[in-house]
């Protein structure tokens, strides 16, 4: 029982960052119909920005987080303007392959600049965990959960309460009609990609200090993000949040009760199972698949 409680607490912490990753990808996938293979690289980028800002520039840990998010936002906007804007109207396979090319180039760039040796990011929290009865959780992880929750709420408000969010939702429903109603669809795409990228960078910046950071850390994160998006349904923000927590729960239970070697297989198994049995995702509105 104590073990189960501990797994549930870990699920909460992990699920928050997974949800951030999922929201970012589901926005890009849903609104732009782009399978974004650079999502994992943005996650890695966020983590390395934390490292650079905290260790090389000597800035405060709490200030580094917003800086990493802004850097992710800028990099995402640059990718969209340089690579995706010239390809508007091409088929989904072409943009997918271009994103794969960008992912390979950027990940190798990270390896070249920062080297393959794993690094860790110092944090200002005490080493001793918070112990509540049978469960213990580190202060850093609590902070990660709180920050992730705050960012999810901000993303939700941005999409549902702002003018940009309304334009994004309109473009998601029908980009031709949205364009006719005076929405600048091209800039909606750029904003969507930048926001999605900044959320991935935020997830990396939050989880980076929890684990160690290395250039290939984003690969698994990207696959997990795909699993979350498919689980939650294309373009569905609430679905992505729930999907993030379900994936975290499956991983925790899989690692705890089956075998830790198959922890990372959970995401893939979820993808395959969902696509075979319910291809629209668990929480989709009646959306077209494919």
């Amino acid at each position: 029982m104590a073990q189960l409680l501990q797994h549930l607490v870990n699920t909460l912490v992990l699920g928050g960052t997974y949800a951030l990753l999922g929201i970012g990808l589901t926005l890009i996938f849903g609104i732009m119909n782009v399978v974004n293979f650079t999502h994992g690289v943005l996650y890695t980028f966020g983590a390395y920005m934390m490292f650079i800002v905290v260790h090389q520039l000597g800035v405060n840990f709490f200030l580094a987080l917003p800086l990493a998010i802004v850097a992710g936002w800028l990099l995402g906007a640059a990718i969209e303007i340089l690579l995706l804007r010239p390809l508007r109207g091409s088929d989904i396979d072409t943009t997918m392959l271009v994103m794969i090319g960008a992912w390979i180039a950027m990940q190798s760039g990270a390896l070249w600049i920062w080297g393959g040796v794993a690094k860790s990011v110092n944090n200002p929290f005490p080493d001793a965990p918070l112990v509540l009865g049978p469960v213990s959780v580190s202060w850093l992880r609590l902070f990660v959960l709180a920050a992730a929750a705050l960012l999810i709420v901000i993303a939700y408000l941005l999409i549902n309460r702002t003018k940009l969010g309304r334009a994004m939702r309109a473009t998601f429903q029908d980009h031709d009609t949205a364009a006719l109603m005076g929405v600048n669809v091209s800039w909606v795409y750029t904003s969507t990609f930048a926001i999605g990228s900044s959320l991935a960078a935020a997830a990396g910046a939050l989880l980076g200090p929890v684990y160690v950071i290395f250039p290939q850390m984003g690969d698994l994160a990207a696959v997990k993000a795909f699993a979350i998006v498919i689980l939650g349904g294309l373009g569905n923000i609430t679905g992505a949040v729930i999907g993030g927590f379900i994936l975290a729960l499956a991983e925790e239970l899989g690692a705890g009760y089956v075998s830790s070697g198959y922890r990372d297989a959970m995401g893939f198994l979820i993808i395959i199972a969902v696509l075979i049995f319910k291809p629209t995702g668990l929480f989709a509105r009646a959306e077209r698949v494919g």
Partner: protein
Amino acid sequence: MNRIATLICLAVFISVPLWLTDPYLLNALITTGIFIIGAMSLNLLLGFTGQLSLGHIAFFGIGAYVSALTSLGFDVPIVGDFHIVHVPWPPIAGFVLAILISGFCGYLVGRLSFSVRGAYFVIVTISFAEVVRLVALNWVELTQGPLALTNIPSITIGLPGLGYLVLKTKLQNYYLVLAVAALSYLLISRLVHSHYGRAMRGLMENETLAVAVGIDVTKTLTLAAIISAGIAGAAGSLYAHYIRIIDPDVFAFISTVTMVIMVVSGGKGSLAGPVIGGVIFGLLPVFLRPIMPPEAQWITYGGVLIAILFVLPRGIVPTLAPLLGLSRKPGGAAAKVAPRAAEEHA
């Protein structure tokens, strides 16, 4: 590409070892040849049915492991004292089994994943490859996990009345790979010019219309998946017996990407495309290695992929063949369909 050009290309490939004796380059050519076979099989799915399978390396890796395990033997505990024991068989049996089992996996994956299309199909295929990789990594009793399967025997061919020929040298392996590649090319060429091939193109161009005229979608796509996976399995088997050591890294996603780059740069939906693209991209690392560090090579790789999609979106062969007067002359029924298909979907 017409028949004469194909034969000239074949003659050039046969004559290569006569004028190229550098073992390092010959080694690069053999591994490139193995990957070209994989790329040709991927082209059958990507270029002729329009399905982008990004888990293709799974069939290659399954072929490699099946072939290696068949020729090495294994002793795997299943439940309690119940073991499955297999005594080593000759490598050529492993080669045949690799084709059959990979083809069967292609059938299973095809049946399960052709119910979804586009981005979803891509993601299912990636997930399949990753699950297979994790099984190869974690089922240590069977696969030795990260410790790798070592001392895989070279392929042996029994010649009636002449005894056995062990294909150990680079030269022998070069011709073995070339023979398998030529056979695969012939098989794919026959298939895409048959009525199944026309059904595949029909599906790619307009699925609704194809269904309306009575094409069985699942059957056609599954057939393509089986043959494609079988050929990829053959390539994996050649790889295992040539390199003679395999570990779960054989399933690396980057290998699928390499094959995709070969197909897309050469020209998807063109028979010669994967061969031309494969020769260029297989040998590119050989020329890049002396002048830049590995990370920069990969950056170049990614950059070249992006550049090709921007500059030559149809690929090298479909763009250059008409200029050189090598496009297929109007003739058989298939030839009438081919140029239109190439124009609209290349």
